[in-house]
């Protein structure tokens, strides 16, 4: 019955509508605003479930398509649709937003309705990014998304929030200008803004390389890739917990989604020619950023750097197919890299969300993120300690958790390309364990460090359920990733077949 509904429009506009209603309701009765926001977040998540249930796993075609003319003079349409790449990301977004709303329940006391509204509107816009099949529509959502996040950090952020917001905004905006230029150039070439048409447009090598570099700027900043990554630790440190969660869990993925939706299919030859660059930057993210993460004194910065390293695995997975082809002469194992990158996106969404929520739990009680202010938290917060260790293990890629699946697939694919790439990628087993478990040692284990730690209260019911649900998701995906892969396989195989054909 749901299959004919405009589900994608619903998951985009329901939260935006809800956000506006929460705004109108205002802060006279904060409890009412919270409840309304939660109702809309849950409703949106429920609407997103049929996308998964009724998704046709046997085709790579876009599904749940909607098409309405918008600006006909420029052939711009309100065109929506999802495939195996975007649908899981929409589900992840809807799921995470529910958790963010619950997590903010009694933590946010200042401008409650606006906070909730910002996240609901942000959710709708992010759904729009993933569902848009028209380049202009994509760009509109892509840019509009920055505004609520800008406000979230700027209003509910920490003391240095203005510097962080500016850095965040300028960095990402700087990148997106190049994306706009690329899209206009492609429109001129193809005579269409339909993303699927752009996939087919023939392009010369020079044009491809220039477009690739322009899009790289846009997407690399979002992910973020080395060396344009330094805005992320600053933004995380200043952002409120919910902001960090959405930033890490969803917004970073929009960069890698951009590669999958634009760079790879539109510019296969440039992707092939510049694979060395992408792989090098990815490996720098894994090794260099992993080492930097080790030395962080601030919990949020540490997890932020860890996010960059984990996203390095995603970009490695996306570009390793070209190296596989170059070195072995066939595309066998290529899809494993791309699928691995995508699993890593979903897994990192869950794990980083959980870790930022954990840090939020501590911050709400102690009002500090400095690692040195903690120690022996497990003594006073045993349940929290247990869950934190679980998420730390997932972050370190332990088999049985979601963190392992994607990394394993990417390492397998990398080995096919080159032993040393796989070797450098595999250093994450040591590095991620080192920085994550050293954090655990200093924060969770040990004697009670000070009086504040001695007075800590263990998780309340709300916190317990939020983290508990994430723990179940992390374990489930680690023990049985098949449902996720079944959704992706056709799309990824098609993408590999597509990039295997030169446009020259």
């Amino acid at each position: 019955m749901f299959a004919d509904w405009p589900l994608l429009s619903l998951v985009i506009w329901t939260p935006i509508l809800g956000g506006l209603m929460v705004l109108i309701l205002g802060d006279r009765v904060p409890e009412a605003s919270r409840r309304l926001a939660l109702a809309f977040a849950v409703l949106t998540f429920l609407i997103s479930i049929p996308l998964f249930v009724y998704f046709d796993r046997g085709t790579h075609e876009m599904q749940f398509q909607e098409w309405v003319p918008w600006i006909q003079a420029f052939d711009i349409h309100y065109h929506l649709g999802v495939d195996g790449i975007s649908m899981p990301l929409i589900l992840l977004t809807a799921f995470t937003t529910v958790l963010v709303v619950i997590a903010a329940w009694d933590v946010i006391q200042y401008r409650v309705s606006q906070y909730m509204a910002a996240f609901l509107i942000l959710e709708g816009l992010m759904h729009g990014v993933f569902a848009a099949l028209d380049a202009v529509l994509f760009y509109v959502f892509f840019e509009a998304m920055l505004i609520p996040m800008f406000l979230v950090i700027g209003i509910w952020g920490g003391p240095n929030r203005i510097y962080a917001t500016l850095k965040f905004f300028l960095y990402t905006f700087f990148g997106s200008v190049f994306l706009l230029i690329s899209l206009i150039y492609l429109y001129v070439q193809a005579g269409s803004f339909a993303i699927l048409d752009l996939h087919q447009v023939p392009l010369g090598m020079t044009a491809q390389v220039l477009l690739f570099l322009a899009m790289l700027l846009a997407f690399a900043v979002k992910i973020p890739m080395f060396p344009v990554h330094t805005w992320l630790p600053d933004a995380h440190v200043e952002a409120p917990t919910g902001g960090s969660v959405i930033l890490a869990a969803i917004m970073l993925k929009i960069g890698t989604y951009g590669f999958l939706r634009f760079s790879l299919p539109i510019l296969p030859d440039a992707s092939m020619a510049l694979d060395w660059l992408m792989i090098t930057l990815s490996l720098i993210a894994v090794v260099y950023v992993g080492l930097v993460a080790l030395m962080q004194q601030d919990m949020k910065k540490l997890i932020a750097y860890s996010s960059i390293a984990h996203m390095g695995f995603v970009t490695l997975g996306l570009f390793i197919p070209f190296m596989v082809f170059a070195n072995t002469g066939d595309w066998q194992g290529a899809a494993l890299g791309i699928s691995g990158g995508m699993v890593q996106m979903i897994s990192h969404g869950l794990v980083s969300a959980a870790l930022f929520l954990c840090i939020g739990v501590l911050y709400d009680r102690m009002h500090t993120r400095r690692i040195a202010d903690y120690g022996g938290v497990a003594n006073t917060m045993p349940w929290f300690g247990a869950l934190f260790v679980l998420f730390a293990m997932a972050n370190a890629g332990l088999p049985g958790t979601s963190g392992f699946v994607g990394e394993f697939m990417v390492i397998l694919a990398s080995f096919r390309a080159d032993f040393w790439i796989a070797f450098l990628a595999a250093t994450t087993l040591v590095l991620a364990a080192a920085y994550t478990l050293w954090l655990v040692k200093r924060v969770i284990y040990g004697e009670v460090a000070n009086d504040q730690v001695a007075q800590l209260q263990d998780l309340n019911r709300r916190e317990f359920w939020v983290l508990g649900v994430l723990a179940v998701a992390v374990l489930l995906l680690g023990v049985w990733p098949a449902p996720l892969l079944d959704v992706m396989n056709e799309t990824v195989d098609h993408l590999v077949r597509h990039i295997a054909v030169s446009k020259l």
Partner: protein
Amino acid sequence: MESIYLAIVLAPLLGAAVAGLLGRQVGRAGAHSVTIAGVAVSFFLSAYVFWQHAVAGAAPYNDSVYTWMVADGFRFEVGFLVDRLTALMMLVVTFVSFMVHIYTIGYMRDDPGYQRFFALISLFTFSMLMLVMANNFLQLFFGWEAVGLVSYLLIGFWFRRPSAIYANLKAFIVNRVGDMAFVLGIAALVLHTSSLDYATLFARAEELSGITLSLLPGTEWSLLSVACILLFIGAMAKSAQVPLHVWLPDSMEGPTPISALIHAATMVTAGIFMVARMSPLYEHSVAALGFILVIGAITAFFMGLIGLVQNDIKRVVAYSTLSQLGYMTVALGASAYAAGIFHLMTHAFFKALLFLAAGSVIIAMHHEQDMRRMGGLGKYMPVTYVTALVGALALIGFPGFSGFFSKDGIIEAVHLSSTPGAGFAYVLVLAGVFVTALYTFRMFFMVFHGEERFRHAPPPDHGQDDAHGHHGHGGEPHESPWVVTLPLVLLAIPSVFAGYLIGPLLFGDFFDGVLHVDPSRDVLAELGHHYHGVWGYLAHGFMMPPFWLAMAGLVSAWYIYLRRPGIARVARERLPWLHATLQRGYGFDAFNDAVFAAGTRRLGQFLWRFGDALIIDTLLVNGSSRAVGWAAGRLRLGQTGYLYHYAFAMIIGLLGLILAFAL
């Protein structure tokens, strides 16, 4: 059959879940009842499975339970391979685990983390079973890392102690170094076969051995050798072989029951099991076998030497474990896989016994672990004394005890082996027999015989082990409760008699079709020609060098530590450099701390401060924003707001245009 296997695996998991998640609700008795019930189910069903495979002759079972995922044409399955090797391992694991569960009731009686401890040892049992029952590399790696996780959690069980949380972090990271190689080894095998299944890989071993890989430009390496060595590096971490052994001595920070279960009997033997399981692959790589042989021999001898200078009772047993793991590794290198597995089994019994006996002593000493404050305990705790003696005799390979059969098998096999490095290994394992006897009976005499030093010992620092209350201090040492001594007795039985299985296990057809040995290297078959029953083997043992070396070690220990206690001190003073070297464990820890740990931290600090903060943030990001600001400041000079400035500029522009058109 599948439901039996599932029950074997899931019963301990269920117990762990109940004890761990509902610990407060079920209480202490509930937690130990449910976990012991779970592991008992596992044990009895494993015994049934063992009987079916070993006696009733059931065919190997190899089937998948569920599909983990499908991607890019790869099927990743979770499934079981149960043959005689698996059945033997299942039996050993569940039996020792069962004993340790019971023992824990006594040992952890007063610990506030009682339920957590039971949950974790049951979770360990589940993980270890998943490891040994896997029929593919994915599940093997799952079990491999899961036992590492539980080991991490249990070494750090008393997480308030700085030494414990240092040791568990160290253990996890060192193991991760091995796991990194292990993953790469798996990837190497998958590379050409697109399969993770043992059966598929084994069937294609021949073909794999012909493939080469270019690791460095211009060099060609055999893919199979690279894969086997990488997998073995993983085993070196898990089974604590030099130089990745450094975590095991520190792991003694964990409570004694897990030292027995995880860090002696089962988890650390996972590497040995893995290589034996992969024998169809290893047999195609002489390079890998030679590497294994040499590493094992070095571990067997040099780690045993360190045991001579330890004063902490648990550390003596820990170094002994390292040394014995070295023996098993040597067996693998000599292609005597059956001998390695045989020693794995006997060692699991007698080493678990020794550890639990040490734990019983530790309880009697009110959690004192320093042997210099013990002595003469034998008469106060007869059961512990006798069982520890059984364990010690088994460890040194005294004829008739289980260790004699299994260790002799290894030594003879190495003697016959023609694998590169076998001569070197033979000398070391033979010398190791003397060392083993010396440190074992040094410990035995220091603990159970001689002067009762605990009477005039200075007040011990209580930091050693706070599992147990400090009640009854100053009273006579006394025997431990039955929950402690019963497992000792039950472990002592196989510590003696398991050795008599040597006929079928080493020279018979027990492992036919499971362990593959290239006929040209089949040293055990060669030994089998001279084997005429267990009694003949036993009698023969009295005439062989290992027996006399063991006796020499035993007598030396008696002479040095009981008869003339001054000798040890004189030796220490005469050879201070030797003593210091051994005390420092050849400096591995110092080297790792200085080079790897500190070096990594320094590198991270440098990259952060120099790369991220200075180059990217200060110079590039803030630099470009300053540059923009500077340029804007210059440009602003043109926009003064004075009308005559603009009028003047317009006139100049107009003139310029006119000129341009005019020309």
